């Protein structure tokens, strides 16, 4: 496989597995991580074109990881979330005011159960080489 590298960070292993399978079928090189810290380690260790990132993660929270990714890499990030984007759902979730600026860092947001063709389209777009030297 010579496809672009995609990292999936989601604590739902089934979700990771199905998404990885789907993307591999599309020709991408896929890694998965199941918690925030693992995700961070992988970001720090490899150059990913696209990161599919769940916001609710154990050990190292999604928004924090998003900020870290954006600060330390050039990866495009698609946030995949089950939390309604306009809703505060309790203490665990970030309030809109906290989350909004973080979400601004994301390149796209997909609410589960997301429209698959839409997500694939975004990944295709984001995985295209952007820098002149890559052309």
């Amino acid at each position, binding site marked *: 496989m010579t496809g672009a590298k995609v990292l999936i960070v989601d604590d*739902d292993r*089934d*979700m990771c597995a*199905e*998404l990885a*399978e*789907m993307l591999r*079928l599309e020709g991408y090189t896929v890694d998965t991580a199941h918690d925030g810290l693992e995700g961070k380690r992988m970001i720090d260790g490899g150059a990913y074109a696209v990161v599919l990132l769940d916001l609710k993660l154990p050990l190292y929270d999604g928004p924090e990881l998003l900020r870290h990714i954006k600060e330390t890499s050039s990866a495009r990030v698609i946030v*995949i979330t*089950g*939390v*309604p984007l*306009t*809703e505060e*759902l*309790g203490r665990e979730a970030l309030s809109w005011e906290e989350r909004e600026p973080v979400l601004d860092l994301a390149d796209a947001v997909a*609410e*589960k*159960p*997301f429209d*698959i063709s839409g997500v694939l389209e975004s990944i295709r777009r984001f995985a295209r080489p952007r820098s002149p030297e890559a052309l």
Partner: protein
Amino acid sequence: MQAEHDGTGRAGERLDRGESSLRPALPEIDSGELLASFPEPMILYDAEMVIRFANAPAVESLGFDPTSLSIDAMRERIDLRSPESDDRAVDLDQADGERVARSTFYRFHDSAGRVHMALGSSAPLVRRGEVVGVVWTWIDITDRVRAEEMLSVAMDRLEDELVERTIELIESQELLEEISSSTHLLMAGLDTSFNYLRVNKTFAGALGRPPEFFPGRNHFDLFPCERTERRFEQALLSRRVLNAKQHALFRAERPDLFYDWSLHPVLGQDGEADELILVAVDVNLRMKAIDDLRKATEQIKQAKRLSDIGTLAATVAHELRNPLGVIRTAVYNIRRKSGDPALERHIANIEKKIDESSAIINNLLNYSRMQTPSLKRLRVGDIVSESITGARKRFRTHPAKISRNLRGLRGAFVKADVSQLRMVFDNVLVNALQAIEGDGEVRVRGTIGKDGAAVVEISDTGCGIEPQNLERIFDPFFTLKAKGTGLGLAVSSELLALNKGSISVRSKPGAGTTVKVKLPLDGRES
């Protein structure tokens, strides 16, 4: 000594007998009978001031026959005093020197020690220029004085009472006026046949009549009620205050008005009730307040329940979204990998159900996040049209027709939240179509109501709703569908309330249902 009292008829004899004693002769009195029959007490003293004669009234007044007593003995015996002369003993013999008649007010004791009051006169008996005796007469005024004293005391007491009563009256008059002018006490005076004597303004006002309407009319002619009449009669007989709570006192005319009232018998001098005062307090406001409070409490409970349910629903919905996402991705992968057209129908079904589940979740979430609408001026007809288009798409295979007539809403604007309004019409249209099995029709009609509101009526020819269910259709989680959340109309109703609109439903089982959505108009443009 003649100590015996032997009646008035023989006074003359006694005088005759006196002549035979050693005492100087009495002047000749022509008519002993006359003296004896003198109606007031009379005593005759001789020149040495010894009593020679007392007539019967005198004996009666003194309680003994004073004949033969000297004036000193007499004074001592009866403790004769004149209050007018500083309690000094009266000198009856003064008359001797002055030879004039005197009238004085005396006080003396009778033989039993009782104090007597007397108005007395003494006069010298003169014969040939010589005083031969003194006649003393008096009128016993003890009873009169006592009566006068009692009268005086009674008068004083009456006067005091009068003053007291007057003060009370003034006070109660003020009180009465104060009470009468108060806005919530109904007051009426009734005679013992329950005819109105007078009523205050509040009383008359409560029944929508002028106060002068009532006097002379009978309470039970105006407001017949046997039971109350019996109780009034009891109050009258027992002279006790009668109380009633939350009673429709004027039921015959105003069964809707309730009063706490009391009937006070006013007792006359004979101790019988000669008037009744009816005082009533309008408790409708209080009852309404209690009712409102109960309703409000109910609403708060309901709201709390909904809020709890909302939080729960949102949490559940959120948790379901993850697995649903996995299922959808897995189905995608199956389709991709198998490429088997024989599986396609099953895969399509799974995807359809994922969509449906997702829709239910969104509905739940919408209910739990009933947000402040972002009001924008929009054409209500456009929103309805969009919803109709959406419904047609979703119910492509449904044989029922959707017809519309939105001409009445042409150029009509409302201020509402676009997505919330869309959700309302979507929900109502889904309900309408789902109520129809097989052929049928959903008619959407837009008009401007008489009250100037935009009205959208969505009628279906479906199964209709039973009356007992009709009153519950806005309850959250109440559903008549096999697969419904029971949130559609509850959400719609809440959303419309947020957008200052309203929703109502009328239905005929077997014939169909009409849902009427009303929104305040925000101007019209052609």
